[in-house]
């Protein structure tokens, strides 16, 4: 096998095509070493990941310079200014290491610093000193206002009121729904057990090409439900059929749905267990969650008949 060329990790150099050599790392150049804080490998600069101090990884990064924007195709190799094969997207040679990497599991002792058997490679990660601080600061740095909260071990001691993680534990919906209805019907042993708290209802939106489903049990109030629905249906409003690079697409993500709804063009309605269509928001949340069978984001003009005392409500209330 020929020696892989420098800065060639997926065969992106000028001369080579995508062949077998692309899969072999030039181990010497791309040596990953596991190092304790403060140590640096002698022959290369410290590797860092997103190298972002405040955990919100949505700051403009040097990546933009490296990766092509639409239309301008540059080879990756062109974009790296050093000749050493820095095959990660970082130019910031700060010593903050992959913060995201340490976030998800508190390090057990003895893992850092050991040499790794069998692979001839080691990772050089400079672990930030204030790792505990970082762990406690934010659980989910990369996704703002997201329902997916990762429980750390610290949280495990806190009793009952825990946000549910989407899709965890990995149990199929069929099982969840069946168990949920079983438990409401069965005898004494199951009394008082919350069991499979999930209640998937279909959500349709006038004009959208397909339905969505939401689990009402994971929200505690109308605000949370409305945020979640906004997020889900935003892409239907405008812009999902625009291509990247087409002007006018910017900023049409989250604000647009809210605007439309505040403009009373759409209202949120639900079908209760008696089959009647009602406006969302009239009853206390708990009562709503128990009786709601499906949701519909309806065009405002169609919803007039539903308003109690003829007053149209919009999402701005929530």
């Amino acid at each position, binding site marked *: 096998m020929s020696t892989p060329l420098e800065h060639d990790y997926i065969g992106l150099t000028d001369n080579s095509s995508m062949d077998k050599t692309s899969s072999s790392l030039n181990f010497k150049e791309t040596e990953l070493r596991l190092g304790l804080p403060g140590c640096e490998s002698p022959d290369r600069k410290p590797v860092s990941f997103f190298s972002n101090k405040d955990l919100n990884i949505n700051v403009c990064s040097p990546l933009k310079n490296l990766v092509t924007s639409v239309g301008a195709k540059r080879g990756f190799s062109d974009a790296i200014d050093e000749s050493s094969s820095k095959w990660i997207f970082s130019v910031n040679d700060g010593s903050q290491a992959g913060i995201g990497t340490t976030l998800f599991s508190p390090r057990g002792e003895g893992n850092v610093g050991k040499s790794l058997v069998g692979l001839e490679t080691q990772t050089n990660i400079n672990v930030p000193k204030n790792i505990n601080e970082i762990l406690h600061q934010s659980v989910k740095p990369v996704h703002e206002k997201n329902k997916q909260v*990762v429980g750390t071990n610290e949280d495990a001691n806190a009793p009952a009121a825990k946000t549910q993680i989407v899709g965890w534990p990995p149990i199929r919906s069929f099982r969840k729904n069946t168990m949920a209805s079983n438990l409401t019907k069965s005898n004494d042993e199951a009394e008082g057990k919350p069991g499979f708290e999930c209640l998937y209802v279909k959500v349709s939106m006038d004009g959208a090409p397909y339905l969505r489903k939401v689990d009402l049990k994971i929200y505690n109030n109308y605000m949370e439900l409305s945020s979640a629905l906004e997020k889900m249906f935003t892409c239907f409003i405008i812009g999902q059929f625009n291509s990247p690079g087409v002007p006018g697409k910017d900023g049409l993500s989250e604000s647009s749905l809210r605007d439309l709804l505040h403009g009373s063009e759409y209202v949120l309605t639900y079908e209760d267990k008696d089959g009647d269509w009602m406006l969302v928001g009239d009853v206390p949340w708990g009562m709503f969650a128990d009786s709601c069978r499906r949701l519909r984001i309806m065009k405002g003009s169609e919803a007039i008949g539903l308003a109690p005392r003829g007053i149209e409500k919009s999402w701005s209330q929530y």
Partner: protein
Amino acid sequence: MDHSFPQKVLEHLFSFIDSNKDRNAISLVSKSWYEIERRSRKKIFIGNCYAVSPTTVIKRFPELRSITLKGKPHFADFNLVPDGWGGYVYTWIEAMAVSVPLLEEIRLKRMVVTDESLELIAKSFKNFKVLVFISCDGFSTDGLEAIASNCRNLKELNLQESEVEDLSGDWLCYFPDSYTSLVSLNISCLNNEVNLSALEALLGRCPNLQTLCLNHAVPLDKLPSLLSQCPQLVELGTGVYSTEEMHPDVLSSLITAFSGCKQLKSLSGFWNVLPSYLPALYPICSRLTSLNLSYAIIQSSDIVKLIGQCPNLLRLWVLDYIEDVGLEAVAASCKDLQELRVFPSDPSCLELNNALTERGLVSVSKGCPKLQSVLYFCRQMSNAALSAIAQIRPNLTRFRLCILEPHTPDYLTLQPLDSGFGAIVEHCKDLQRLSLSGLLTDRVFEYIGTHAKKLEMLSVAFAGDSDLGLHYVLSGCENLRKLEIRDCPFGDEALLANAAKLETMRSLWMSSCSVSYGACKLLGQKMPKLNVEVIDESGPPDSRPDSCPVEKLYIYRSIAGPRLDMPGFVWTMGDDSSRKLELDVAGVEAQFRNL
């Protein structure tokens, strides 16, 4: 001119070879073998419906009679794949309706089926025999009416765990009186009542019926009369297994009915159980090889009484009500047990359950020498227990452990569970499928990469420290076909460094990880044989910096190029066409109809 056997001889030889793996190997021997094989292959398995186009498949295998297709990524089972993602089967049905009129079998998993698709199946394939929909959705009982009316030769209708819009229970009435060929019927997923008299009549006139799985709406007092119509049953899924109050005459008719089923080997259903009715099963327990009590809310003692009489059990699915003590009983009675699944009865409960712990699993591992396949939900685990299991049960081929709370360490030592899982992969050399949970560092991935050489599918959640973890797996697991990862700190490096590996796999799923949009674009551009799909419901990733991580990423190899039916929240990377691609018309229309 080659020196091989005459074509007719080869054809005859190949006709004995059923497994797709073997046939794939045969087709690589030589051009003539390829040609002979492809013209004689009848059964096709397509693990990813987007990996190849229907036209390509039909062209290559003109004698196609049976097709199996899988659609959505596995994590769709846990609601991680938004609705509308794709997996529409209509284009396949359409293509086959034209070119494969003799098609007999369609088996689908995690695909979107529409009533139109069902109607098209019903009228296009005169000799249609087998329809299996596992975890599918998008259709209603109207579509089933079409199947029932038209498929004169239907043998199997299996809707296992599918989501069916249940508009009416009368679809069963559409099977004509002349229809007698039913062998297998699984309607356990339906929500509403089916027309029971139609069902009973159907059972009565189908002498070859072997499998019947009812839904929970079938009351227990109807079961004896249904069973009396088909005493030859091999596999039964009961309806609800209780009544408001215990009726002795229901019990006695159940006893009579079950005693009459001399071939019954497999039981499931048991939606709601009144334990007083369990003795009706005692006469048949000794013949049982498969028992699914995973929806039955019954105490350990009742379960044990039942299982104690089932010495020939090969497969057992239960809820954690069985407790450690019940599993010890299993270990003592069921010496032939091959597969154990223990599901959680109350996954949202945060307290430790001292009744079902790692000890139960250790007992079964020790007591059941043939145990191969494990799915186990529990709240605590130790490295010691995992090591013990690994050493005593090296014949494990499927090991899925779900410790309910993410990041849970070894409860005895508070260490990560790296060494325990390490022992599993080290000792169980034939391990094909593994699901990890608990507190895990990069170390566990090092072990996996080093030892798990036969591993084909790996599921990872809330584990690892760095890209090294992902790198170990991608570079070490030679037989890896499916990798699914959620909530792990894996980013661009390992993915890009192992890009070529991805072409040797069926698919990779990563959600809530740290892969940047820029890396996805790069991968998509540089790897034309991969479809790199970014799923992001918060809007076009182009509106954010390239360094931003994507919500979800699904990468799969494909010779069909980028797919054409993506919804607004899925983008294919590296696809040069600037237009957002069209939606599958049928899929869209179907959804409208569902509103």
